[in-house]
């Protein structure tokens, strides 16, 4: 069992604060590419937070989930960018 105050918990809390700041940009963003940039930033922060959770709980499955999440978020970003460009696929 982990102790209550670990350094990784503090780091993950600050990462959650930066996710909240990026969500403010996603809500405010005047154009569609602004929102896509905010989503891309949130994806990267979530990946690093998942790897830190894997180190915190000493469990490998969190890092495997982070790898799959990275590849799926990359594909979703590419498809949204293709959609914003217009034209055929």
């Amino acid at each position, binding site marked *: 069992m982990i102790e209550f105050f670990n350094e990784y918990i503090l780091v993950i809390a600050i990462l959650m604060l930066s996710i909240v700041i990026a969500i403010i940009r996603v809500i405010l963003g005047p154009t569609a590419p602004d929102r896509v940039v905010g989503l891309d*930033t949130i994806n*990267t*922060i979530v990946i690093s937070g998942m790897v830190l959770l*894997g180190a915190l709980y000493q469990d490998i499955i969190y890092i495997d989930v982070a790898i799959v999440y990275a590849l799926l978020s990359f594909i979703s970003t590419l498809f949204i960018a293709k959609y914003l460009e217009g034209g055929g696929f």
Partner: protein
Amino acid sequence: MFEIIIYLLLIIGVFFNLLGSLGLLRFPDVYTRLHAGTKCTTFGSIFLIGSVILLGLKDWYLGSTNGSILAIHAIVALVAILLTNPTGAHAIARAAHKSGVMPINAQVDHLKEDTGGSKKTTEIKKKEAR
């Protein structure tokens, strides 16, 4: 010794991630926001995952097999981030330019002229050159 390096990597990584989000909120433009929100976050994630790799290597050195698995999987996650994140940023920038979003205070679009997009701006430029 290992603890100090791990703390240092964690501090650098979380600092750059927070700076990337603040730049995403504060910059005036899609392209500058992309500059802040993608490069700073990738740089910070390198340091955060590097600290996890170092933690796994420390556990491996102290004689635990769980640490080696942690380090190798973290390296794979780091490679996935390093391959996919700049490619996604480039695709977003290309899509933003093609969907007609101009940088703030921009007068002419030199990229469109170079790729032979609109004839009108090039004619105007020729007239100005005379």
